[in-house]
């Protein structure tokens, strides 16, 4: 078996130092947006890899929130601010909880999967909103990140956190790309197409979905930690289904064709959101909804297909797979 890197992985490896460099060159406001979208972009990645298997997670915010609160609780109650420890805690929390919940969710598909994932995320929402010590719906603040004892201040702190956000994000994207190319990831698309056949070929579709679910959760948890540190704050809105819906929106908009697409999609969303909300706060969701409808109707493989210039553009009679998977 070859361990060759495909184009995407090479681009990621080249892109990382470029991305880090940009953090020192570009104006601060852009760098802020990049940083925020890297964190939330990871959650969109989690949604995207599930979509490859035809599963729409309307509750990915659950693990986004679990990661964030893991970091937050560690900071608030144990005084832990070390980035590496916080990331580890976020991953641990996400993986353990998703491992358990995975046993339930792996048995469902399509609509049920969407509804149950939504329901589970709202359970956490209700729970966190009612806990006074955690600030109820207001949430609470986190201390600034430190790095193995080094506690940078001001400008240096900002740069340090930026770099510390870029590296895990690109690494996750790289690893997820490897996963999608591996046998376990590859049969995700087969599960979407014909799960019965997958079972008859000799492997467990449920197990494949479970693994996928846990991976998506881990990645979303990391995103939650990074986002929480960037903002210095966590609140239950992170797990509200309306937040999860935004990750779904990004996944639809960017398409599932390539692992970097959701990252770009999130970044574009962040920028557009700021301006749209400033111009007309009561039409932001309408714009989102309309863009989503138009994407579903006219650009089923998402914006990435424009970049790819896919050959089979105009097929009438769309199937879900055109939208929920691009396959490269």
């Amino acid at each position: 078996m070859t361990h060759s890197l495909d184009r995407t992985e090479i681009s990621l490896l080249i892109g990382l130092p470029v991305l880090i460099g940009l953090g020192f060159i570009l104006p601060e406001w852009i760098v802020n947006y990049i940083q925020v979208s890297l964190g939330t972009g990871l959650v969109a990645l989690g949604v995207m890899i599930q979509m490859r298997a035809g599963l729409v997670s309307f509750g990915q915010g659950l693990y986004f929130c679990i990661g964030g609160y893991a970091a937050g609780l560690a900071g608030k109650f144990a005084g832990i601010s070390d980035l590496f420890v916080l990331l580890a805690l976020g991953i641990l929390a996400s993986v353990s909880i998703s491992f358990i919940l995975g046993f339930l969710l792996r048995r469902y598909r399509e609509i049920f999967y969407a509804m149950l994932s939504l329901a589970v995320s709202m359970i956490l929402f209700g729970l966190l909103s009612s806990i006074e010590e955690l600030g109820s719906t207001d949430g609470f603040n986190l201390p600034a990140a430190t790095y193995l004892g080094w506690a940078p201040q001001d400008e240096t702190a900002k740069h340090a956190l930026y770099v510390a956000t870029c590296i895990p994000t690109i690494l996750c994207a790289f690893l997820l790309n490897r996963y999608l190319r591996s046998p376990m990831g590859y049969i995700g698309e087969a599960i979407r197409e014909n799960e019965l056949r997958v079972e008859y070929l000799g492997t467990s579709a449920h197990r494949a979905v479970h693994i996928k679910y846990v991976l998506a959760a881990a990645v979303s948890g990391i995103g939650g930690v990074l986002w929480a540190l960037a903002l210095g704050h966590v609140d239950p809105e992170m797990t509200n289904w309306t937040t999860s819906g935004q990750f779904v929106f990004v996944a639809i908009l960017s398409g599932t064709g390539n692992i970097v697409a959701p990252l770009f999609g999130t970044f574009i969303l962040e920028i557009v959101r700021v301006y749209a909300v400033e111009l007309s706060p009561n039409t932001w969701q309408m714009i989102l909804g309309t863009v989503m409808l138009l994407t579903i109707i006219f650009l089923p493989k998402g914006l990435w297909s424009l970049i790819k210039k896919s050959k089979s553009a105009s097929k009438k009679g769309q199937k879900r797979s055109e939208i929920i998977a691009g396959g490269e």
Partner: protein
Amino acid sequence: MLTAVAIAVDGLGFAAWLFLSSVGLTLIYGVMRILNIAHGGFYALGAYSAAWSIGLYMQTGSTVALTYLLIPAAAIAVGLIAGLLIERGVLRFMYGRDEVLMVLVTYALFLILEDVTKLIWGTESYVAYQPAYYLGTIDVYDIPYTVYKFLIIGVAVLCGLSLWLVLNHTRSGKLLLVVIEDREISSALGINVTLFFTVTFVIGATLGALGGAITAPEISVSPGIGAEVIVMAFAVIVIGGMGSIGGAMIGAIIVGLARAASVHIYPPAELFSIYLVMAAVLAIKPYGLFALAEGRKI
């Protein structure tokens, strides 16, 4: 004994609200196989329309009694306008597509409806409490309840009964049951499936709006109630079995009683009573109590 009665009445009251808030959703799914997230939008539109029109009306100083007509009127208006616009304008071009795809479409529509609501009525809260208190209160075992609460229970029962009667004892209703079973065969038999879809969607939208309209006098109507009701409605129809109206009724009753029980016996569980019921039901019947049967695949 007191607690039992309290639980029963509270439970039925909540069950009525749950049923009215979810029956439209399950009806639309059963007939059209569309999980309509925009349902939350209909609920909100119904609530806002009712609250606003009641508020306007009250300013004229007339008798409160007539506000009770405004509630179904608001619901029907929303159902007709929003329902027709969405069904004829968007959904009808997408029939037959994958179910999950339709969820994404209705989610997009929900986002649009949320802002439509904001554009029409702004972001402040609307309060129209008059209908809720006009009928006074009634004491059951020395616990006061608004008569309005019993009115809601009555409306829910009426809705449930009417739907059952229409579906099982009228010609159109039976034809609808056929469409629910198999859309393709139905149209091959000459049933105007498109018409049924339109009518069903409008009725489902009206019922969703009715849920909101009838609740409006009891709450402060503000942005976000649509998003909240979606969660509850989903849970109820998952418990009852998607597409089953009887299931929605029984699911609503079980959840209503469970929630009332936890309020009176173990308050911390209140928030999660609905999810606990869902978990318990799914453990025994993975697709809900009265899930629609599926034919053999291979």
